[in-house]
């Protein structure tokens, strides 16, 4: 049933300038589940997220969110449609306070009068952020900064959250904490689309997996099936999959 899919990509082509990175990418992302995108470095995983979120023009193909065509929506339109994006790397505003960083996550909120209440609720959910509310965000540890980014991305209460490599540079304990948050979100009905370098650990946490290589979807299946697939090890050793694999 098509309605199981919150987000679809059909033969999406796009890239930087004349360079093509997404080369007919196709995906069907299931609602209220965690789907992890894996693939070798440079496969186009981050580029895929940028295209979904309207940060990169799509040359051809089509994307839908809940059946609605969102191809070449702007980021603001994607936010309004219930999607938020936590990009790869460090994306806090180091010189603003933790609270003010969080507040910026509410810029797209239609009813601004509800913003302080939402910020307070988010602070309660992440006590460490409440504790540091008045501190410059740059003084937080790497893990705390990632938490802040996730919290900021949740402020609009999105239906779908795109998260690009949240665990990079975090301590194992912090990784567990972030993954725990993602599971709790999924259990509350939020759809999570995740990119992870640590494929095995991420797939263990996920419901579904998607293997991207050279801008094309090679495998789209249950996470447990992908975990059991011998070809995955081969892929991450640099062997590569034949396009006919599906």
């Amino acid at each position, binding site marked *: 049933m098509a309605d199981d899919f919150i987000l679809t990509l059909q033969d999406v082509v796009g890239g930087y300038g004349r360079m093509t990175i997404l080369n007919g990418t196709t995906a069907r992302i299931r609602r209220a589940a965690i789907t992890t995108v894996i693939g070798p470095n440079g496969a186009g995983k981050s580029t895929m997220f940028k295209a979904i979120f309207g*940060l990169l023009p799509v040359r051809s193909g089509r994307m839908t969110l809940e059946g609605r065509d969102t191809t070449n929506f702007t980021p603001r339109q994607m*936010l309004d449609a219930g999607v938020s*994006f936590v*990009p*790869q790397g*460090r*994306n806090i*505003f180091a010189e603003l306070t933790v609270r003010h960083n969080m507040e910026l996550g509410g810029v797209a909120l239609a009813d601004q009068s509800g913003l302080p209440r939402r910020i307070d609720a988010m602070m309660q959910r992440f006590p460490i952020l409440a504790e540091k509310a008045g501190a410059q965000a740059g003084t937080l540890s790497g893990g705390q900064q990632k938490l802040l980014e996730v919290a900021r991305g949740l402020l609009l209460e999105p239906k779908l959250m795109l998260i690009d490599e949240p665990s990079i540079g975090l301590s194992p304990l912090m990784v567990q904490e972030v993954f725990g948050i993602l599971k709790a979100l999924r259990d509350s009905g939020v759809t999570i689309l995740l990119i992870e370098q640590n494929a095995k650990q991420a797939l263990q946490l996920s419901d579904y997996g998607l293997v991207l290589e050279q801008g094309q979807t090679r495998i789209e299946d249950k996470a447990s099936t992908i975990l059991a697939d011998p070809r995955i090890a081969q892929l991450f050793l640099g062997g590569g999959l034949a396009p006919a694999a599906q």
Partner: protein
Amino acid sequence: MADFLQLLVAGLATGAIYALAAIGFTLLWQTSQTINFAQGEFVMLPAFLALIAMNLGAPFPLAALIAILGAMVILGLTFKLAIVDPLIKSGPLPLVISTIGVGLLLKDGVKEFYSAEAQPFPKVFPETPFSLGGANFTYAQIAVLGVALAVIMALNWFLAGTRTGRQMQASAQNPTVARILGINVNRMIFYTFLINAILAAVASLLIAPSQFAKFSQGEQLGLAAFVAAIVGGFNQVRGAIVGGLVVGVADNFAPTLLSAAGLSSAYRQALPLFLLVLIILFRPQGLVGRKEERAI
């Protein structure tokens, strides 16, 4: 000591005006990578807008308001829409060259359509001197310093204390993340251009009474603002403030220092460039600067 205080206060008063121009310069750079080589002319023009309004019978306060609004329309809105927006996509060089062109246009426009002569400007604040601890100051100096600092404080409050101000900061620090959060980055950039125009207009109205208004004034003002921005680190508002004050104070101490060193006072003109070279050689990140960092 009294001489020292006297020169210091005079220097801070000039420096605060330079700081206004340097802050605007820095803001444009931060938010839109525009290096505005017409900044000196931006500070020259508003005084003439005020003069035109006064020639038409407007009292000074109204003329000052017209100068500020006129600057917002010409140096803010029109500059952004007609020059920056079409060129920004082509990289920094075409834009830099165009701002040089805009500077020439403003300068020669004023010369052609107003006057090539220096124009006396109403003394808004009394030039009457008073002495304190043996040093002589004028009320005008103190008032100029006060107004400039008040404007700077108001700007700081706006940038740090309002949601729009923080959205502007976010857009400058990391435009991609700002867009991801739904901030209208282009509108924030537009606000920066308006703020720059206001700062230039205030600087213009503050400097005109003591230096007169002259079409060619922008050369020296632009250089001072540029050097102040570099001295301060180029990418920070508080750097521009420090830079402006340093350049202003250095400028006022220059004649005394030059004569003490047995050098001609003509070297004073070269002082900003000398400061520039010193900074680039010994502290390229500026006095209070930090290295640029940008994610994504």
